[in-house]
């Protein structure tokens, strides 16, 4: 597997400045508004293949109050420059641009990615820089432009296919499952498909059921593809670059509500590993596994839990296929209790697979059954209150941990 080039960068994410695309911020049902969130330190750990216990690595404990930790209190492992601040969609764009600069065969295709710059502005400015051919606007036919990407990939290009919303990629399921994942295998290794399929998914702000799909559950079974989910500007850029460089087809899941997250990322180039998870917070009492937007709900809950005296270990699994069972396993062996927090539906979601996987491999280390918090098996309703109830909220996470750790 590609080695991770991770810097131990302490990055402050002032979540109080988190803006969502939609201006409706308050969550009347839960009583927790986004503004009350604390800042916290996100620390990415170095190579995990050394087999060392996570606890041995440099760890910075979460501050127990709601005050933002200042940057100079963070131990950076490398003498990196201060870096630059940007939003998540800009980080994606930066990663994309760097790869397009580096390799002339990298190209982008999708609806409105060209001069319009993409519905979420991830490809803004790229068409002007690289021309209409490398940043291709396509007609509305997801199965077709995904198929086109596969054909282009088989003949030497490295396309990035953007789904305007992941849900629309259901139309491309045939191409993704029957061709993208399979052709390298069925051709006897002759044709490789280094395609990246990316787009926003997840429950947004009242976007309705069709625009709130969690496609990772549907795609996870397809053999031959890799799936990753980004959650911070830092890992967004790193995963984008890694996905483009990978010779396997990779599906990169972004989240509609995370595009405007701000973070300071390093100036120097870095590429993350597609198969590794991210240790967000170390702890001893319980392992909380999550990814994408739920990471923030978990960290919000973690703050409350810390106040109550618990010490949760939070892992952003990032790699949805395959799971990073190494990191997860080490954590389970330490804490013996697992809570999975996901946005997928209860049935057949990432959490369901992860539960099965952990049970299979680490059954002896578990002191209690795994708790999996997921959305209900319902289409996402439009009404704001109902929508909030279908997504796992921090209060539920706190309650689950308290229950588990009794």
């Amino acid at each position: 597997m590609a080695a991770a080039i991770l810097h131990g960068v302490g990055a402050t994410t002032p979540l109080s400045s988190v803006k969502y695309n939609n201006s409706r911020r308050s969550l009347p049902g839960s009583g927790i508004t986004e503004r009350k969130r604390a800042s916290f330190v996100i620390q990415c750990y170095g190579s995990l293949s050394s087999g060392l216990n996570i606890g041995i690595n440099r760890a910075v404990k979460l501050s127990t109050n709601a005050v933002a930790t200042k940057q100079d209190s963070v131990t950076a492992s490398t003498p990196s420059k201060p870096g630059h601040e940007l939003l998540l969609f800009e980080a994606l764009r930066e990663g994309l641009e760097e790869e397009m600069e580096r390799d002339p065969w990298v190209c982008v295709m999708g609806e409105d990615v060209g001069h319009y710059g993409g519905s979420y502005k991830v490809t803004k400015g790229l068409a002007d820089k690289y021309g209409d051919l490398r940043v291709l606007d396509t007609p509305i036919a997801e199965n077709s432009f995904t198929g086109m990407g596969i054909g282009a990939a088989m003949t030497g290009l490295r396309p990035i296919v953007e789904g305007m919303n992941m849900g629309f990629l259901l139309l491309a399921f045939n191409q993704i499952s029957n061709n993208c994942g399979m052709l390298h295998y069925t051709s006897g290794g002759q044709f490789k498909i280094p395609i990246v399929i990316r787009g926003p998914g997840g429950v947004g702000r009242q976007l309705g059921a069709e625009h709130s799909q969690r496609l990772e559950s549907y795609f996870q079974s397809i053999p031959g593809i890799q799936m990753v989910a980004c959650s911070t500007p830092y890992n967004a850029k790193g995963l984008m670059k890694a996905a483009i460089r990978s010779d396997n087809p990779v599906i990169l899941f972004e989240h509609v509500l995370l595009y405007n997250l701000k973070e300071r990322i390093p100036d120097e180039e870095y590429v993350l590993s597609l198969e590794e998870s991210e240790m967000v917070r170390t702890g001893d009492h319980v392992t909380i596994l999550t990814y994408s937007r739920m990471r923030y709900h978990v960290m919000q809950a973690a703050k409350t839990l810390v106040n109550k005296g618990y010490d949760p270990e939070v892992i952003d699994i990032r790699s949805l296929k395959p799971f990073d069972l190494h990191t997860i396993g080490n954590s389970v062996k330490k804490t013996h209790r697992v809570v999975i927090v996901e946005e997928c539906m209860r049935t057949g979601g990432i959490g369901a697979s992860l539960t099965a996987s952990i049970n299979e491999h680490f059954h002896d280390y578990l002191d209690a059954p795994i708790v999996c918090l997921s959305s209900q098996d319902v289409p996402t309703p439009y009404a704001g209150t109902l929508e909030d109830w279908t997504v796992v909220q921090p209060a539920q996470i706190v309650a689950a941990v308290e229950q588990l750790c009794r």
Partner: protein
Amino acid sequence: MGSWFARSRSIPYLLKRNISFLHANSSCKTLPPYKSPHGFRERPAASILSFRRLESTLAGKQAQAVAYTDDEVDSDADGENQSIEFPGGRVGFTTQMEFISEATDKRVPCYRVLDDDGFPIAGTRFEQLDEETAVKMYKSMVSLQIMDTIFYEAQRQGRLSFYLTSTGEEAINIATAAALSPDDIILPQYREPGILLWRGFSIEEFASQCFGTKDGHGKGRQMPIHYGSKDLNFITVSSPIATQLPQAAGVAYSLKMDGKEACAVAFTGDGGTSEGDFHAAMNFAAVMEAPVLFICRNNGWAISTPVSEQFRSDGVVVKGQAYGIRSIRIDGNDALAVYSAIRAARMMVVREQKPVLVEALTYRVGHHSTSDDSTKYRSVSEIEQWKRTRNPMTRFRNWVQANGWWSDKEETELRGTLRQQVLKAIQIAEKTEKPSLGDLFSDVYDKLPSNLQEQEKSLRQTIKRHKQDFPADVPL
């Protein structure tokens, strides 16, 4: 409102007269209002148009503001020569409400060079073949036929699990292959093994793939006839219908970026044109100006569905224009016509960097595959007729022999040699080792990931423990 019908006047004419729409009724002469709500009277279209205009002053103002310029005025009373601007360009308008008919009087004719007996039709224009190419073409057609016959029999004997013949479509297979360049990348449906044959895929390689041996290009991972060869620019066959069509646009896009003098050639059958992928691919290729040559083998049958139940258009050729793609219909059982047409089409595609659609009419003489018995849905006499009197191979052979390039003796010799070769290839392939266990897990990804490593380990352990329950001839 009936009395407000203005006489049929061109809109500009009225505008010229500076009539405000609100008072149009008072200053214009009126037509007698039509009585029947169902029928149309003389010049009814105009009445209805003006009726609509009067109803909405907003629309009227728009008509005033848009498009009308002096040099376009034609005071011809029909109003046929005016044009309006809409997104997508200028479009002329007419005051006659005319529906475009769903069918033309005559079907699009197909291009043909040889008559039923294989003699060039008088006045026909075609690309002349030299002796070497013509003989190679004919020999390849024979090879394809023999290979098909013997492999089919092998399946019937239980030695192969599945097979699919190209009987009746030999001309399309071989003549197309001969007309293309080896750099052209082929995206096959599944009835085009002749192209591989032409490009040098050996009988042994065909057998290896069909029997799923370790020597096969597919490493035993696909069912028979799903050939693929990167070296010969032939993308591995994928079972779902028409998925290769949008991929052709991507391949063409790639060739365009490379600036190569080659094109993507995508095949489909008549049934495949019903798939959504066909329409989107055609649209894409046209919009992207991708150098794709779409070849539709219209052989009349999609398993048991005849073309009359597949589409109601005049075949597939008329669909080209709908997408802005140049198209042609050819006699797919005429090797010379196929050769000439594909040569010309390819030239257009590569030079103009635009897609072209070729509909090759033919007949599927064989069953759809070994899983099908076509006598269940079509008459044996129909099949026999096509086999005997309209055989593409007979027609081409007659032409080649008439040129003095082939003889009956050579025919017998060739068939004998080929038969031996194919039988031998089958015998060897049957005995060749199957791919090893490691090939179950390799190539899913570029490198074996942890979960697959684990699964392989677990499987090997199970096999070790219960050796007697697993096939002995699969190498570990």
